């Protein structure tokens, strides 16, 4: 088991390195750097001016070295100018004495996430606050989504082909067929529109960042939860119907155990193994939904930061965002693998 976790973690680290390198490579392609130089400096810069700006700010180095510096395994660049020393690990221009005291390495391994050119602050700070907002959103999404999906799936799967099964299955197919940007629009139209709607909820969640209430926070939560719910419910249903046809359920029935007891005490535990992995593997898609819903409801969280970073080519912020999302995705995959082994005694891993 220990070896298994170790191997999985190793693969995970390699994956994370590969993915961040891809993002690093794409954001550091020359046209992107040129755009960055022009937005930071001056839009009328000549090609030579762009090249010298990039050189002065450390973007002119080979990509592998830049990646190493960002990661924190290669010493940060320094450069002596007329009025002092500039460098990756030095704020602004400094004299030689101050520059000598600055750390040699400053990458994400040292906890230095860099500086956001879009928000003009430290990336670490942005990620922290935005991730906090999104974490709160996700918490409520999971609280709403997981129990209701499991209940729908179990109810539908306990009597295959019954009226309950057919109607609940139709509902879950409908929710999987409705992406967030469609259901969000429909919800706003029905519940929040100021002209024809019911006006039960607020159409934006901007206020929910300071003061989340049922009124301003329920619609975004519901929008994300619904899309994932249908899929989990269908998986739960499939797993439940499979368990309900197993031999030991038939034995329990023949013994005269009541139907409620069969479902709750015999079938449920085995039926919930498969949905557990499915829920964990839903995280990449939830992340997708978060980006859409945060733009739709104007909730300034992690997804909003991603959109802002990507549309302004804010390299360091974009890298941080991708590191966080890749780590979340890979961690949930790891948890789902390990959890599956724990939950399912039939699987043995040396």
């Amino acid at each position, binding site marked *: 088991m220990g070896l298994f976790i170790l191997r999985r973690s190793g693969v995970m680290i390699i994956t994370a390195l590969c993915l961040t390198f891809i993002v690093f490579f794409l954001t550091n392609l020359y046209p992107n750097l040129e755009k960055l130089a022009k937005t930071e400096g001056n839009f009328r810069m000549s090609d030579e001016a762009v090249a010298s700006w990039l050189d002065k700010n450390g973007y002119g180095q080979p990509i592998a070295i830049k990646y190493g510096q960002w990661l924190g395994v290669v010493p940060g660049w320094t450069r002596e100018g007329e009025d002092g020393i500039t460098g990756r690990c030095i704020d602004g221009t400094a004299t030689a004495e101050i520059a000598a005291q600055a750390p040699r390495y400053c990458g994400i391994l040292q906890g230095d996430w860099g500086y956001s050119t879009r928000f003009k602050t430290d990336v670490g700070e942005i990620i922290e606050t935005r991730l906090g907002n999104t974490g709160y959103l996700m918490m409520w999404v999971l609280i709403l989504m997981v129990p209701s999906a499991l209940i729908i799936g179990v109810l539908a799967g306990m009597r295959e082909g019954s009226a309950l099964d057919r109607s609940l299955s139709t509902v879950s197919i409908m929710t999987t067929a409705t992406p967030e940007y469609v259901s969000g*629009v429909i919800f706003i*139209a029905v519940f929040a529109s100021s*002209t024809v709607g019911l006006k039960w909820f607020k159409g934006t969640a901007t206020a929910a960042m300071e003061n989340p209430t049922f009124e301003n926070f329920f619609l975004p939560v519901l929008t994300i939860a619904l899309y994932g719910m249908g899929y989990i419910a269908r998986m739960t249903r499939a797993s439940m119907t499979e368990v309900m046809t197993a031999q030991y359920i038939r034995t329990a029935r023949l013994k005269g155990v009541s139907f409620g007891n069969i479902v709750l005490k015999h079938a449920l535990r085995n039926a919930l193994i498969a949905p557990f992995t499915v829920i964990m593997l839903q995280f990449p898609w939830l992340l997708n939904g978060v980006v859409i819903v945060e733009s739709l409801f104007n909730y300034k969280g992690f997804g909003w930061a991603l959109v802002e970073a990507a549309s302004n080519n804010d390299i360091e912020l974009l890298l941080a965002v991708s590191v966080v999302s890749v780590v979340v995705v890979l961690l949930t995959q790891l948890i789902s693998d390990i959890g599956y082994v724990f939950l399912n005694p039939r699987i043995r891993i040396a």
Partner: protein
Amino acid sequence: MDPLTWTGSLAFINPIFLIALVLLAASILLWMGVSILTAGTRHVANADGTMTLAGNPQAMASLGVRTTFFAVAVLALAYVLLGLTLGSGAGIIGAMSRQLLPTWAALVILFGLSISFKRRLGLYGKLFDSPIGMIGFALVMFWVFTGVFAAMDLIATHDPLAQLSGMKNKVPGTPVRGAEAGDYAWYLLGGDNLARDVFSRMVKGAWEVLKYAPLATLFAFMVGITLGLPAGYYGGRLDTVLSFLANLILAFPVILMFYLLVTPEIVATGLPQYMAVVLFAFPLIFCGVLIHSRFRTQPSKNKLWLAVVLVPMALLYLSLVNAPGSKIDFWPLDFFDVPGGVLVVFVSVVFVNSPTVFRIVRGLTMDIKSRDYVAAAQTRGERPWYIMLWEILPNVRGPLIVDFCLRIGYTTILLGTLGFFGLGLPPESPDWGSTINDGRKLLQIYLHPALPPAVALMSLVLGLNLLADGLREESLKD
């Protein structure tokens, strides 16, 4: 011209329709409740040795659901049929129904032919045994026909890009100000914030989706199959490497990938074009290997088939990746040019979809390769690629067809997501995602620009899901 109401002279049906809808909802709830509390129908053995099904509350509830559903369906059909005859006299619904006449005609012909010949049509024919599958197929074909006829300019009432003065954000059914004799006199579903006709944009948007989604899914399947078969069949190091790459792409947040690939700066470097060179080569490889592995022992036939299939495909491939004025510009025989943005969208959708297909094909292959017929083919001395493409692939077609339907729906959602973020497709494009994005800014005040494309997208994806469900059900029966 007077503004149109929703149902016009058919308004007398509305209360009946509403009552039928309420009854349907009530009977479904009752049906569900009864099914929790009571058991299903019982078999009763009669004295003369026959069996009968005993009726019970559940059967009665289900009868109630069927009756009310029938009533709702008949009334909905009445709106459509009376609308066809009355046209704009029957309000917006009637006028839309009249505009959609080619779609209705094509649907009736298709269903009539398919149902009368369903026993000779294999899996496709069996689809018409399952009500779910039929509903799904009807929804999908409705949008397919609407898209095709809209592309032939049979359905749209106005130019989807034309902005008419005074029609900005107007409600559905508003008459067009100063319409000439030949023009259509109303904006059936109102005008959007640039005074364009919402109805025309919606039906034109159907064509935008149909142009890209099925083709992108097909390409993703070619890539997934060509790589997944050897990975599953050989296993070992090849499998490890390919699976690692697939997991790498799958772990990447889709939206981040789109943002990275679709920006104009990246397009200027030619990276999407290089990806297109690689990804679009897979159909060529697939078809080449498919033919060669079959006719390897008959060289003359082999050459003929390879030439017939590969030469046109290669020409298409080269004109697809070759675009004058870009990084890849060497091929003189360029038949058509794909606009840069569209190519990027296409490439990224294929790129995102193919790892999932790869994993499915790989899993199925690993399952099938231990079967006896594969062992028999190996003993006969068949080559590995023959076994993969002509023994294994035909036997996994069931799950693959089902997944193909689901994946078209998923691709539609992805394309909509791209449109929603304003990535790739030209900003004026009437595709549903962009239209929803345009409409959402004023959503609190004006609902009508965003709602029709949202409902359209939902119904198409729902149709594809139901179709996949019906196919799965029917293919499991044999």
